[in-house]
């Protein structure tokens, strides 16, 4: 019990401390704080303590007051920045929320429920998020801001962890809504951190898009109170057959908004203007992971129709987002689109209501978080130490820093190849869809989408990876990666290796098949490290005698505007079908 409150409160306390303390001491305090939350989350997971908890009335009132303040703050921002959409959505939310405040509610369930899903999410949020916070200590040091602003960056990241911890344990929709809006607020503040024009613009876009999710949650909350007199997720799930499905469908819509699924993807791509640790924490451990988490949570209430349509929607997003990424040149944008894609995959798996689907989805969530954090951290290093942002500028990186190439390759390989967890997640989800075809042949459409998504992502990652490898035979200078960057990256690689053990839990693959790629990777690693071709003579490239001066050549698949429009309309259409279908 205390552990969970600990997880929620410790980040808040450390956020406060890191705001005030001076730079030198801050480092040790932050590392100490991260260690505390990491240990607490491991402790909860280790003891598997399932429990539930009720807040007393005062806390309920405080949360309601904070909610109102938050909504008025959004309205105020919309007014100041003269952004109509922000003000409109904020006012809609204020109206609905005041209706909800007027309605009497009965407290017939628990405010917080910690189940297995929440425990796994704690691990992801605190360990991966914590490592990113330590990394951002180094990153933010070289930025050109006042000390207070640098401190506030760290404390915002800590607050993010605390709020996410509360969000994943929330059972009451009211508290869930509160956390949802808080993450919207934090992402808004972090995206506009640099305070230039694009940053402000993108932050506002993130704000209004995320508020759509807020509106959706409020509407479903209102309906839940009016129709079933409850504000608790577990009660809604237990209503059974006569459940009005629109409630769940709207919650799913809120999840898609947070997960930046296709019609809403522009807010997450706009978040690139923020300092890189923000992208790292948004993409891996926090914010966007709300999407698969929420779907996992509400999946037991889905009707077959809703389940199929969400699965199809997620698979479609997986395919198109990875296709769009093939055309991008900005390294962070490529990573961002691939996040959107993989979130689509997680959503589509989560929407299948089977025990195995939950397991596969959690696996994807965990390993995607680790790999994405690793990759975004490398993007930050590329930016800070090598001054590289675009794919077309990254050439023969391996001649300058082998370690960085190693990290990036591990990041990509861990998302696509055996023996890493994310690969097995994808593998099992493909298997899952194939086995579903026998029950309902329509599942072939999500299957085909997922196959394409998988292949697109593979060729995307290795297109990027190939840019790094071209080795020069001339002399060159090497750059050393700063220690804090290096250790945090190694920590994530270590987590990936720890994750290999998890793969042995699955029955459908034998021990031989799982351990084979591990053996291969070990063998290749040793071979790579020890092999020296002393007897061979090193020569220049033959290249058919041609002396073309060229830099590395990668392909880009350009999509015509009409196709992009079509993608947008199809995904909006799928959403409309989902919502209309759930009303009937």
């Amino acid at each position, binding site marked *: 019990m205390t552990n969970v409150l600990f997880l929620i409160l410790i980040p808040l306390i450390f956020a406060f401390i890191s705001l005030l303390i001076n730079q030198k001491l801050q480092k040790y305090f932050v590392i100490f704080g991260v260690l505390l939350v990491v240990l607490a989350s491991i402790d909860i997971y280790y003891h598997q303590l399932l429990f539930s908890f009720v807040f007393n009335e005062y806390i309920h009132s405080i949360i309601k007051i904070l909610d109102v303040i938050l909504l008025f703050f959004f309205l105020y921002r919309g007014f100041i920045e003269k952004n109509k959409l922000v003000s409109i959505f904020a006012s809609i939310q204020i109206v609905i929320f005041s209706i909800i405040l007027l309605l009497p509610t009965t407290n017939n369930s628990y405010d917080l429920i910690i189940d297995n899903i929440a425990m796994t999410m704690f691990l992801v949020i605190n360990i991966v998020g914590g490592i990113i916070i330590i990394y951002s200590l180094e990153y933010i040091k070289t930025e050109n801001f006042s000390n207070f602003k640098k401190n506030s960056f760290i404390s915002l990241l800590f607050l993010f962890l605390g709020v996410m911890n509360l969000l994943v344990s929330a059972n009451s929709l009211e508290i869930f809504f509160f956390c949802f809006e808080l993450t919207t607020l934090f992402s808004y503040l972090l995206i506009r951190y640099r305070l230039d024009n694009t940053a402000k613009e993108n932050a506002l876009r993130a704000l209004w898009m995320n508020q759509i999710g807020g509106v959706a949650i409020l509407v479903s909350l209102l309906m839940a109170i009016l129709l079933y007199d409850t504000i608790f997720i577990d009660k809604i799930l237990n209503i059974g057959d006569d459940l009005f499905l629109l409630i769940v469908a709207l919650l799913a819509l809120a999840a898609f908004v947070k997960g930046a699924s296709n019609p809403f993807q522009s807010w997450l791509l706009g978040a690139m203007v923020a300092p890189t640790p923000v992208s790292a924490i948004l993409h891996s451990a926090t914010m966007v992971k709300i999407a698969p988490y929420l779907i996992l949570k509400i999946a037991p209430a889905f009707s077959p129709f809703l389940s199929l349509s969400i699965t199809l929607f997620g698979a479609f997003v997986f395919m198109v987002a990875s296709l769009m990424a093939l055309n991008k040149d900005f390294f962070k944008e490529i990573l961002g689109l691939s996040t959107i894609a993989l979130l689509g995959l997680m959503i589509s798996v989560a929407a299948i209501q089977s025990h195995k689907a939950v397991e596969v989805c959690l696996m994807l969530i965990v390993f995607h978080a680790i790999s994405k954090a690793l990759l975004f951290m490398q993007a930050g290093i590329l930016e800070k130490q090598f001054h590289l942002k675009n794919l077309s500028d990254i050439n023969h990186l391996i001649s300058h820093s082998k370690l960085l190439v190693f990290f990036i390759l591990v990041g990509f390989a861990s998302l696509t190849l*055996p023996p890493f967890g994310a690969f097995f997640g994808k*593998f099992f989800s493909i298997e899952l869809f*194939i086995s579903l075809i026998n029950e309902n042949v329509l599942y*072939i459409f999500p299957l085909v989408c997922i196959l394409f998504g998988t292949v697109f992502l593979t060729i995307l990652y290795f297109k990027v990876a190939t840019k790094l490898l071209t080795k020069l*035979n001339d002399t060159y200078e090497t750059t050393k990666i700063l220690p804090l960057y290096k250790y945090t990256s190694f920590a994530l690689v270590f987590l990936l290796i720890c994750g290999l053990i998890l793969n042995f839990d699955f029955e459908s*693959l034998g021990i031989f*098949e799982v351990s084979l790629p591990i053996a291969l990777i070990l063998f290749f690693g040793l071979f790579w490290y020890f*092999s020296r071709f002393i007897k061979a003579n*090193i*020569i220049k490239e033959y290249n058919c005698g041609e002396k073309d001066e060229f830099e590395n050549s990668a392909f880009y698949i350009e999509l015509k505007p009409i196709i992009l429009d079509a993608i947008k309309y199809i995904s909006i259409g799928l959403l409309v079908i989902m919502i209309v279908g759930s009303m009937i």
Partner: protein
Amino acid sequence: MIEILFFLIAPFVGGLIYGLERVVRARMQRRIGPPILQPFYDMFKLIQKEPFIVNQYHIIFGIFHFITLWIVVGMLIFGGNLLYVVFIHLFSTIFIILAGYSTKSIYSHIGSNRELLSILAYEPILILIASGFYLINGSFEISAIRESSHYLQTMPLLFLAMLLIVPIKLKKSPFDATEAHQEIVGGVEVEYSGVFFEFLYMAKWIEYIFIYMLVFLFAGDNIILGIVLCLIVFILVNLVDNATARVKINHLVKIALIIGLVLSVLNIFGIVYV
């Protein structure tokens, strides 16, 4: 026992098929052609050559490609999870792509790029074929797939889709843009020489075994049918190779993908409903 033996001699069987293929192709063009053992003569000669390398990574990736491909064939022979085999095969292809990019040679890069794009063409189809087997058998286990037969009746369209991707993997015209000797001088192969080229050469032979074993799977437990199928595919592929001209890589992807996808999806609908 016989499986272990076959696993060990797999590259050499592949070499024999390759030699035979050169003879057959020559006869189709009314030439006499090289002796069947010509690939092995090439091999001995390559080993004797003085070793030259461009850089270490290039060579290491080439060797890794060879080893993983051999393991893939091993998994096909000993019987594993078919879907998994397809993915490990992808793993091996990734190595050759990385190898192509690790030198600063334009032909090598173009070859790698095309190899990468051709994954897009055949990978979804291979997985759909695997799912076809799953829908009939309820299992991806190759040993289970080998126990029953009549796959040709139940998945004829998937077999046609398979025929489409055979030339892509074997680098046969019209789908040989990844290698295209006259155009990009062998693509990825161009910077290898001597004994190191030998690894790539043998990897190519193993690719033959991989593809023909997949074709063999369609026969199920009927070994004679399997041999007949392989022979038909062998002759057909070489006939088409002699009779057609190369298509561009983007056309390759479009043709193979669209036709293959439509065929396989139709077939899967058929399996579920019929």
